[in-house]
């Protein structure tokens, strides 16, 4: 019997790449109010975990549900923000065209008119402060602008959940703050899962944190215990919690996730 309806669920999921175990018996429940950050070392399986959730990677064993069904059937209801290195950032495409991609399937499915589609794209771009750079090719954008364009594309689908892979990688602190403020606002309506390697920043904004390193160390809380980090990163990390419950300062911050 469940008391809380979950938007996404992994149950005992294991993933292997050529026999190598990438994820081992991972279980996770994402409730409708969730704002989860997944942290962990590079190659620890953070991205693999969300790829499994989205049905882009099939698990060797275990069960995956997205909105109660197979991910491949329901993933179009998720707004997905991939890593910027997953595509060619010099592709000849403008910000507007990127955001319009979000409306593509939507547009067909619900038979929206072209006008409505245009308005939707304009709205989302205004919301993420992209209007002034709408016609710029993406190759000319800053890291923060590109991320906002990708988030706008995800929002244009009118998603019921947001999944972001490293949305703040290699962008300046001001842009990071701006992006997380947008996410906080969105989280009032939809659950959000974000992958990050920046423990200090995410812990200020998200509700819960999980560490992924083949296993998922997740206790549905924002506390990161030293044991959790040690297990996830394979080295002891000092936590500075007194008076700053949301700050995590790691002595080994550079370790394992350059």
């Amino acid at each position, binding site marked *: 019997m469940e008391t809380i309806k979950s938007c996404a669920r992994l149950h005992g999921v294991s993933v292997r790449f050529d026999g190598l175990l990438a994820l081992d018996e991972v279980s996770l429940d994402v409730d409708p109010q969730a704002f989860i950050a997944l942290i962990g070392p590079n190659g620890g399986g953070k991205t693999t975990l969300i790829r499994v959730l989205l049905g*882009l990677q099939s698990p060797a064993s275990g069960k995956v549900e997205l909105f109660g069904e197979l991910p491949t059937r329901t993933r*179009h209801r998720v707004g*997905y923000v991939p890593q910027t290195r997953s595509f060619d950032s010099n592709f000849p495409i*403008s910000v507007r065209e990127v955001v319009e991609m979000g409306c593509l*399937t939507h547009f067909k499915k619900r038979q929206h008119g072209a006008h409505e589609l245009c308005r939707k794209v304009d709205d989302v771009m205004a919301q993420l402060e992209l209007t002034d750079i709408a016609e710029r090719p993406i190759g000319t954008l800053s890291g923060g602008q590109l991320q906002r364009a990708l988030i706008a594309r995800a929002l244009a689908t009118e998603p019921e959940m947001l999944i972001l892979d490293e949305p703040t990688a290699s962008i300046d602190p001001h842009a990071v703050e701006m992006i997380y403020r947008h996410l906080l606002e969105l989280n009032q309506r939809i659950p959000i899962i974000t992958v990050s390697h920046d423990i200090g920043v995410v812990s200020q904004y998200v509700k819960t944190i999980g560490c992924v390193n083949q296993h998922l160390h997740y206790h549905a809380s924002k506390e990161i215990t030293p044991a959790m980090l040690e297990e996830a990163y394979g080295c002891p990390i000092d936590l500075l919690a007194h008076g700053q419950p949301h700050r995590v300062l790691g002595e080994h911050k550079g370790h394992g996730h350059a």
Partner: protein
Amino acid sequence: MLELLSYSFMRHALLAAALASLACGVIGSFVVSRRLVFITGGIAHTAYAGVGLGYFFGFNPFVGAVLVSLLAGVGLGTLSDRLKQAPDTLIGIIWAVGMALGMVLVALTPGYAPDLLSYLFGSIMFVSLQDLWLMATLNASVLLVVWHQYKAFLAVSFDEEYSAVAGLPVRFLQVLMYALISLSVVLLIKVVGIILVIALLTIPAALAKMFVPSLKRMMVQASLWALVFTYGGMFLAYAVSSIYQVQVPAGAMMILLAGAVYGVALVGRKRILSKS
């Protein structure tokens, strides 16, 4: 010069070049921005197996080329994932095997030995009316599909994984794209030949990419560049031929012209960028 237009072979050549330029610009823009140049080379060379099949079994070699390149393109699009082989390995293999099969079949065909060079370097001065109709039909289908599915192609070309999550039929669109590339390759074989097909799909689009920031405008500009190169190449071939009193292949001249313009643009652009 103008009296040349009174010859039907010349009118055919000009029409064929125009048809090819349009396909070059549109498909070449996808090929260049998606980095599919090597796959295009593979498809082009494999097509020679189709030519060989045509000669050996006595049907139009052009039709054979269409069939085999379609098979190669669609096969590469679907199999490289499933066979767990690196795509460039498979491309290298079908490239060589296709070419070899064509050579053997042509050698086995008794009687008149077809001119291999005309398939390698094209024979734009010998385009028949029937060829023109075939080209026009292929061109129309390629353009119609791209026009109809432009936004979906753009999405899948730019970001495959996102497109899959968003619910686009990524696999289908990819196979369709490979099929379109294959059709365009065959279209171009008639004009510039198998070896030089890569250049006409690559150079005009690569040039356009230097100057315009969007795929749509890239397609338009690449088509114009392709037109300049094919017509310019024919003119140069005519001029050089009359100076040296020997036959110079038009296809090769087109590519030399295109390569020269590309080089100049590359150097000129670097100069401008370093000055600013």
